């Protein structure tokens, strides 16, 4: 058994604090609690704070601080952590149109055979839930969504693709998500949305923020090109 939280090495100038090892809102809220605590504390100047489902990565200036110094400081902080309260207006449901299958979702046949579901059952299960947004990561504006139905769990590709189309909707293990821009990636792609998830002219630049909810709905190929 592993005791949480625990501190992991992330090289010579970063550590990760891991609060658990499952997709769980309470664990996720601890990650944001530590992040907001460190942001409001000026005793150390951190280069980067990167939140995820269960971990916060803390990158610091390698010249100014040693690994053990940061470890000790963070250990003390973890012990006085209060639960994080999400900001208001974050509990909205963002509706995302998706065209499923064909060239838009090249892995839908594989996911269908792996899950032993028909494609239409797969789509209706995928669109039935409101997914909690645990984090944004992997690429600009990419939301990691929780709460996917067990029946459509499916492992990642063994070898990641070099190129995945902007707006692709995918499944990886217990997770579902959307690629906001063209990038390499290892998710099973089942569909595509015409919505722009990331906009540099907005602040924050991401359309979907941690703490909000996302719901997918199916559209036709024609509707996809109309909304593009």
């Amino acid at each position, binding site marked *: 058994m592993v005791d949480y939280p625990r501190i992991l090495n992330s*090289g010579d*100038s*970063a550590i990760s604090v891991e609060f658990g090892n499952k997709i769980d809102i309470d664990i996720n809220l601890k990650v944001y609690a530590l992040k907001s605590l460190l942001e409001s504390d000026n005793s150390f100047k951190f280069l*980067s*704070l990167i939140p995820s489902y269960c*971990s916060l990565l803390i990158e610091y200036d390698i010249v100014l601080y040693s690994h053990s110094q940061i470890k000790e400081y963070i250990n003390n902080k973890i012990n006085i952590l209060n639960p994080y309260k999400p900001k208001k207006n974050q509990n909205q449901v963002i509706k995302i149109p998706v065209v499923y299958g064909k060239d838009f979702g090249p892995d839908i046949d594989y996911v269908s055979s792996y899950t032993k579901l028909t494609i239409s059952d797969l789509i209706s299960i995928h669109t039935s839930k409101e997914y909690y947004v645990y984090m944004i990561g992997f690429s600009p504006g990419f939301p990691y969504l929780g709460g996917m139905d067990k029946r459509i769990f499916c492992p990642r590709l063994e070898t990641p693709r070099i190129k995945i189309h902007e707006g692709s909707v995918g499944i990886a293990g217990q997770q579902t998500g959307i690629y906001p821009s063209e990038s390499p990636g290892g998710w099973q792609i089942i569909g595509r949305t015409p919505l722009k998830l990331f906009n540099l002219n907005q602040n924050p630049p991401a359309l979907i923020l941690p703490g909000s909810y996302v719901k997918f709905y199916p559209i036709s190929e024609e509707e996809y090109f109309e909304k593009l």
Partner: protein
Amino acid sequence: MKNIIKVLKAGPMLLLQDSGRRGFEEYGVSISGAADTEAYNVSNRLVFNNENDTVLEIFYGDVSLKFYGDNVIAISGGDLGAEINSIKCPLNMSFFVPDGSVLKFHYPLNGVRSYLAISGGIETKKILGSRSMHVTSGIAGHKVKSGDILPIGLNNKFKSGFTIKNYKRDLDFGINNIGVVLGQQVDKFSSEMIERFFKDKYILSDKSDRQGLRLNGNKIFTINNDHDIISDPVIHGSIQIPGSGYPIILMPDTQTTGGYPKIGNIGKIYLDVLAQLKAGDEIIFFPISPKKSREEYIIRRSLIYQSKIFRDIKLDDYMVNGKDIMIGMNDNIIFTENHAFLFNLL
């Protein structure tokens, strides 16, 4: 009038880079920044720029740049056979570039990435606080294109002919020894697998870019053969082990989170070595503690920032050109009181 550079030929991958874009990681925005930070820092220091000024990162060459206005520049990192007005350029030394000059980077002679700092820095529009181009998302541009105009900033200290005392960059690669700090998901790997990771050489695959270096060599697997983890944060230097078993080293354009287990991270000074490798180059990993890795970094950094910056002039009696101008020569470089000029030996 402001100095500018006109890009006559952009080659396969010409990028603007600075020290990176930080503060937007929680929105999934990559940090980016120069892949070879040492070469980036050296080039900026030689032209008296600020530490985080914007430079050109030239990958593989095939680049042609025309300078408008008198400029001072310095090139560091890989040797891409740079020539100005057909005269070979020195590396790791600042020199004067007269109005109308054409600078060409041909092809890799040593390393693959050259850094070109111009006195005053490149002053395009900052996006989310940085000018670093993120190739895949196109934040601040996917890359520099032929025909682009790059505005140059002003610098109060407009002097050239400087080198860093005792600075030497060894890019004559055999097998590269690369330090690894074990971490993040190392407990998912058996000691036999970790031993295998450090035992034999890996070869850089041609499917490598600023997002990640893919390696061929010993396959590494987790204890339960499960290579899906709950996605957690990754940074430049994280070593992912996907289901194929072949390690991927994440580079500056890396995503902010990833779903493959990470055996560890590259020690900071070795990131610069990796930035200069090409497909087929060989590396061998060795374990290093965070403490030792930090010490190595601090030593290397002090060589760049604490060493004297000076003009390596061998005084000569070739020419005397008035009493107010000191003239010396060193190879094909003429030094005056404030500048170094390149010329062709006849």
